[in-house]
């Protein structure tokens, strides 16, 4: 039992970091009143997942996944390119989502003059 934790902290600490980030992100998305903070929480959450992939793909002492005459053909000399590619795409996706979210927020702010969830709900209840 004990050594599991030690290994976990010693070698898998990066995964623990992703877990912490996920919790932070979820908390922000669920609990925060301010919609922008919700959005930030969402980004943290996505960042955590991206990190998960990258951490898995990272190798100590390995080089960029582009063939290099010096390093030769040893697979262990190169990092796994696929997760990086994937996460690049994931970043693009999260950027796009954030863009749309920000556009919505500006629209909300213009229409209701607030981005505080409680106040918004009040306004919704008042208006038909």
């Amino acid at each position, binding site marked *: 039992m004990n050594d599991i934790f030690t290994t976990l902290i010693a070698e898998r600490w990066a995964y623990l970091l992703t877990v912490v980030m996920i919790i932070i992100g979820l908390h922000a998305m669920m609990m925060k009143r301010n919609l922008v903070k*919700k959005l930030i929480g969402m980004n943290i*959450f996505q960042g955590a997942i991206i990190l*998960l992939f990258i951490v898995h793909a990272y190798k100590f002492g390995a080089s960029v996944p582009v063939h290099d005459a010096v390093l030769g053909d040893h697979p262990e000399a190169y990092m796994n390119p696929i997760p990086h590619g994937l996460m690049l795409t994931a970043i693009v996706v999260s950027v796009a989502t954030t863009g749309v*979210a920000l*556009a*919505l927020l500006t629209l909300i702010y213009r229409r209701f003059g607030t981005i505080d969830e409680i106040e918004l709900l009040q306004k919704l209840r008042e*208006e038909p």
Partner: protein
Amino acid sequence: MSGAHGAEAVVDHAVSMGQSHLPILVILPLLLGCVLVPGLGLWRRRWAYPLTLVAFALSAYFAFRTLFAVLEGGPLHYTLASWAPPVGIELAVDALGAFVAAVVSIIALLVAVYAGEAVRRENPVREVPFFGMMLVLLLGLTGMVLTGDLFNLYVFFEVSSLGGYSLMAIGHKKAPISAFRYLIMGTLGASFYLMGVGYLYLLTGSLNMADVAGIISTMGLNPALLVSLVMMVVGLGLKMALFPMHLWLPDAYTYASSTSTAIIAPIMTKISAYVMIRMLFFVYDWDLFLNVHHIGDIIKWLAIAGVFVGSIMAIGQKDAKRMLAYSSVAQVAYIGVGIGMANPLALVGAMLHIMNHAAMKSCLFLVTGSVAMQTGAQRLKDYAGLGRRMPWTFAGFTFAAMAMVGLPPTNGFFSKWYLVLGGIEDGEWPMVGLILASSLLTAVYFFRLLERVYSKVPGEEQKPAGAEDPSFRMRLPILLLGVGVLVLGLFNAWFVSRVLSQALPHGMSLPGF
């Protein structure tokens, strides 16, 4: 890496030889369309609509070609770029995928026919972005259906969601808020799905669905695998508004403009349901997880609870669109029930219900849209006596309502029929009883509405001026869907025997064939 290129290129020629181009041709018109519509729309606004229609028509045409090609010659595989799967991305279309793609594209085409005039009347200035976003939405959805790669599916997932968010933001004054809520929820769901994919990738080192499935089948039970499955179920459940996670849906559907709802409501949650089927039955070892480890039971009971919650909430509503939104929650839950039962007949019922509910719900939302446009009636009590004023519209509405209640010979009856058969096969009598009882609740709110619609208003004796059927182009899709509901019901056996019996996952076969 350049050293290896030549060799690979040769290999990949072999890969790409003789592959039918149909799968990519379903997606391409939409991709080009959603680029060209804003591009040309900037200086010729009135070109936006024809372009959209052409793109939808082309993609629908190719979707049906794909369906028949798959039925003829088995699954199609299409390698994108020069990387052979499982490393590269491929489009893999089996009977199920082709079926859903055809359904989605034809429904979208019908809604697009309707949208031309509706959008011009509802929000003229936003025409160009609206059609652009419709194309983005459909691009994402068809991509999700056709792709054979887990991560690519995530990307299309988000693409379609982006389209959905922005479409939902157009409409009622409160729309942006519900859209934002949906955005948070949807992104959460997609991220959970992505995390599930991450676990799978960590475990198998592959992202190609078939490849992953092969590796998993040798793995047996593995806690990490279970975690990834749970994450996927949660994520997809969020997107398809499975019972405890359905709260975002009613507001979003109610406040969005009627055209947005008409295209989002029938399709989007269904596609999430399709992805759930794809994951649970085609990637994971369905027998091990759903039956042996009782995840199916959890899904099933949550879903049936969702059916009741949705129906009861729908009974309580005063606003037409909100009522339909809650009934969507209930209807999608039927698909969940079919998935959870995890036996051939019930699964066929679920797959069939994807198509059936898409048809009836789009018809209903088109009707509410045109009613709101013609008479401004939003609330149920304003529907009184509309049956005489808008006979064609409400003819379609009546058929769709019958289908929702599940009365023969409409298609709704048959999706229920297969679910019940599946329940009896498993000997799950309580579930069967609940399924049947739930359709009574549906009957309550639809017959209440129909009675109001067709009985005359005490005040007016002769037909009042105005408030007539919408123009032909808005009426046509409604009528086609209304008739389609009947036709799909009468000829459901064709779909079941020709299409869905081939669409069943490995190790399932339909009795009676």
